[in-house]
């Protein structure tokens, strides 16, 4: 099982592309990417999840970490999440705190 994360930052936006599987053994690499941007003056954290095949609660834990570390003024976007990943996000009420999009067109 593997997770690939790629980070792009432009102006006030950090964009992280996630692909593969996000579970307890791979969540650290996602958290490390978040930690790289928590000190930047950002308004948006954009998570591109089109190629994320699986997400366990370890991924949700990182989202809580991101929100609490970056503060309420940073909006978190989740883009292109697959059906079952979305199901987990909704079952746990995370959809109330993030912006869900099919595509990201700033």
């Amino acid at each position, binding site marked *: *099982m593997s997770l690939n994360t790629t980070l792009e930052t432009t102006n006030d936006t950090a964009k992280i592309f996630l692909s593969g*599987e996000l*579970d*307890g*053994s791979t969540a650290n690499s996602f958290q490390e990417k978040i930690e790289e941007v928590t000190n930047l003056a950002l308004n948006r954290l954009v998570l591109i999840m089109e190629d994320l095949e*699986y997400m*366990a*609660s*370890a991924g*949700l*834990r990182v*989202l*809580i*970490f991101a*929100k*609490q570390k970056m503060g*309420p003024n940073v909006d*978190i976007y989740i883009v292109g999440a697959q*059906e*079952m990943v979305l199901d*987990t996000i909704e*079952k*746990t*009420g*995370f959809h*109330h*705190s*993030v912006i869900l999009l099919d595509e990201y067109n700033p």
Partner: protein
Amino acid sequence: MHESRDERESPIAKQSLFESRAEITPFLRPHTLSMKPLIVAGELESLTEIAQFVIKATQKASLDKKAAYLLRLAVDEIATNIITHGYKQAGLAGKIYCQAKINENALIIILEDTGVIYNPLQQEKPNSLHKPLEQRVVGGLGVYLAIQSVDKFRYERLGERNRNIFIVYSQASQKSLFYDQNSRA
């Protein structure tokens, strides 16, 4: 399919499956297919092997994609809990024993460990599901998702072992249950 917490809990069995090979539950029928058990170290690196084991079982049982994903999620969450809380945080080391049993009615996955005693069914449902992330406390979501994601979840304590049992009914058996209930009505 919707049962109360107490009804989901099973009586304490006397011996481990891996010690006794005893039949564990009335869910098992004569034509039960057992996969070769998987025994892995209680470490996060083992999650991949556990996931592969569960995925293989879902394929043998011909579960649909959604049910297969949810069963894998349930087992993954409980296994992660065993590894991080049952073993690592308690300063213990041990293994996770995985079994899969398939019959015409259900797919049953069984995880056993020798970590700290823990019954997931006794954990309260998280009360922060509607709170913004800023106000969330980390923890509890994995067990909540696990129990939500299977048709039936059982916990048993067997001597020194925790046993977590995940049951997903086959679509055919659900359909016949539906018709049975309707015909009785």
